[in-house]
């Protein structure tokens, strides 16, 4: 369920476009920031606000990979799988990370704490390999030790 404030923010967004339904992408972002992911009832609520059917909102939310339709772990790691990182050993790092977490890319660790996703370039090629934690924190020049440290930290928060 969206908060009243989120709803009024979405209504605000709707006024910015000649066609209210165009606000769907920022509305989904807003909802995801608040709820953490996009469960069915949120999809329905956004549809009701924008005058779209649940099926249509779901179509947009599943088309773009950065909207989460499945419940993610408490933390999300986006791991760069592009060329510069690969040249600096990203493959090995990813394998290490998967072992450490006990899950594959696009899955959530068995303890439900961390979701691992592969991502396209995160804009930190000069410090490759790079991963993005919770959409905010860049971890760069990754090594196995650095990864272990980060995972420990995330598991405990």
């Amino acid at each position, binding site marked *: 369920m969206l908060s009243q404030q989120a709803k009024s923010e979405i209504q605000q967004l709707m006024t910015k476009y000649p066609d209210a339904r165009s606000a769907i992408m920022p509305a989904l972002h807003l909802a995801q920031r608040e709820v953490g992911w996009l469960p*069915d009832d949120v*999809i329905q609520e956004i549809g009701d606000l924008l005058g*779209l*059917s*649940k*099926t*249509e909102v*779901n*179509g947009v939310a*599943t*088309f773009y990979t950065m909207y989460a339709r499945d419940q993610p772990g408490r933390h999300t790691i986006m791991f760069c799988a592009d060329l510069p990182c690969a040249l600096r050993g990203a493959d090995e790092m990813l394998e290490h990370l998967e072992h450490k977490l006990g899950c594959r890319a696009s899955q959530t660790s068995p303890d439900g704490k961390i979701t691992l996703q592969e991502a396209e370039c995160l804009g930190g090629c000069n410090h490759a390999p790079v991963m993005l934690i919770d959409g905010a924190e860049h971890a760069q020049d990754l090594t196995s030790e650095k990864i272990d440290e980060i995972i420990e930290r995330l598991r405990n928060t």
Partner: protein
Amino acid sequence: MLEFLLTSHPLDCPICDKGGECPLQNLTMAYGPGKSRFPVESKFHNEKRVPLGDLIMLDRERCIQCSRCVRLQDEIADDHVLGFQARGRGLEIVSLSDPPFDSKFSGNTIDICPVGALTSRDFRLSARVWEVRDYPSVCAHCSVGCNILIGERDHDIKRIVPRENESVNEIFLCDKGRFVHHFATAPERLTTPLIRRGWKLEVGSWNEALNLVASKFAETRTQHGASALGGLGGDRASNEDLYLFQKLFRQVIGSNNLEHRVGWSATNVGADLVRLYGAGVGTNLGALDKNVTVLVLGADPEEEQPVIRLRLTKSVRWYGANLIVANGRVTKLAKHAKQSLVYKYGAEAYFLLGVIRAIVDEGLENRDFIAARVANFEEFAKSLEPNTVERCAELCHVKPEKIRDAARQIAQSPNLLILSGREAMFAQQNDPAVASGIAALLLITGHVGRANNGLIALYPHNNSMGALDFGLLSEGGLSVREMASGKVRALYAMACDPAAAGEFTKPAFLVVQDLFLTETAKLADVVLPAQSFAEREGTFTNTERRVQLFRAALKPIGESKPDWWIIAEIAKRLGAEWKYGRSSEIMEEIAATAPRYAGMTYAALAENVKMPRPAYGQGNPSDQPTEIAMGELENVSSGKAWRSVAESEPNAKFELVWNEPGQQSPEDSRQYLAVARSLYDRGTLMSQTQIVRPRVPKPWVEINSQDAEQLGIENGARVRVSFDSRVIELTARVDGHVPPDAVLIPSNLDGTAALPLGARVKVEKV
């Protein structure tokens, strides 16, 4: 491209329903390479049986992601219930509505699916399309009269698909028309005449049954006079049946007790208005452009005439028709209206009067037309005096500026169509000013006697129009209620079930002629088995007055006979010299004697015509040379519509009738009862089709959210509705569709038959 489409296509054509009529298969056969360059191992395998709602099965492996079904639902059906999920090779069709694929047009996606991805859960894997023989027919459900093809194999209906007719249903058909056909071959069908011996109905021979009916009719007539006999002819029967039925009563028996409106509590259905001002021949509801204003009054075509709703929506969205929807509640069609007006139930006449007054006030009436064809405009205008627009507005709860705006659009538009539905007809019954208001609106603006102008009355059944044409109306005779309450000594009920539609007292002698052992038939002295529309020929007249021919597809079930044959046999036994060998001979007689049906022989009705196929696209169809754009349809039998008086007598003068609107009922703390209808019901025909059962809603009552809050009723709660001496329990639907102080109940669900519209009801929580 074909090679790409086939990379993950399963190529299971030998077991695919679409095989034989599959565009992908045809294209591959014509142009495809024999061998693919992609390795077989790289094929994707997806789910092959994904139920998409109750009626459609999706095969994700066959789907080529063309999105035709999504676009049909979005752009034509206006039910946004199908969509894509994910992307790339994971792309798949899903429906998240509740219930899944919640649309009345879902079956059309099967037709337009270019592969076998969407299949009918009814027809699926039951026959190959080349083994099915298609017989042209006309849908026997609602009054739209969609053209269909009955696919027959082994004397069974395998499937029903739409038959293209640009002036009736285009290429569409609603799910009721498509899936509800199992009644025709149901095991419960009556196969022999039944005669009551003692307490039981026993099998009898045709001769015995007919002799008994004729002798009882003759006996009743000699003992109690001809008016002791009555006939109820259902408006599902064909024109031939109804014509002979009334001829039997009027000419042979000499009784005028004839009715067809069983289950309708409205007594005035506007048949006179249709005869005088019916929409001009050539009106095409699916291609009305910006020069046409359509006023939909008190109607809910989504539930009652789905294909008309679909075509009106299409006219608005594709061609810019100017739609005005006026009703006591918000219906689905209102979403597309340029103007949606919600008047107060019971004050319909004041709404119409307000519009008329606003037209006269602003001098927008059509003076040329009035001078040529209206006899008494001055007097009429004078009698409007005391009712100002403001007064009308106050009484009907529509703002005066909205009334004025609607009036301007109606008067200034080059063309005007009025579609009046069930709720408007009920209003006409309570208040004659509604009917005279509709007529006056058409006359003072001069919108009659031409195509795209005039009145279309949206009647409930496939041949309601025919029943009205042949005078199965209680003019001078007894009403349905009187006949059903035992005021006649002998009653002949054909194709109708008065006992299920309300209170019924069995008369001394009761004959029922039907497909099934209905509630009325269980009480009958003689039951005569009739044939369904699939087993015989005949004609239906649709709500736009179009007479259409249907052909036999099946062999008769058991000893059942066509209705007209049975009537003729009874007439012969009563001494009439009737010689009808086939139904076409009856139609020839109708064509020769009934002026409206002049020239409408089977040969003329079956005549194949060329029909321009309209171009689909934004804008005005008349701007584009459509024949060049999309070519013509050949070999279409389009049926023929009869002409209204306004068309056939161009010099006839019409008179405006003034009726002071009925007194507003005093304020009442109880709720006003509005009665609607649900497309899917518990009717005799529906109950034989298993797969549509889940679509039949549980009886519900719609309440405004304000009222619900006051009464403490939540959405989905059980409520008790009481009126007069009757109490019914229903589930509440709380929404903004009905106005405050009114409740809406569909009248064709479990236990909701024969609801008195306009009654005051009390609603309380259980």
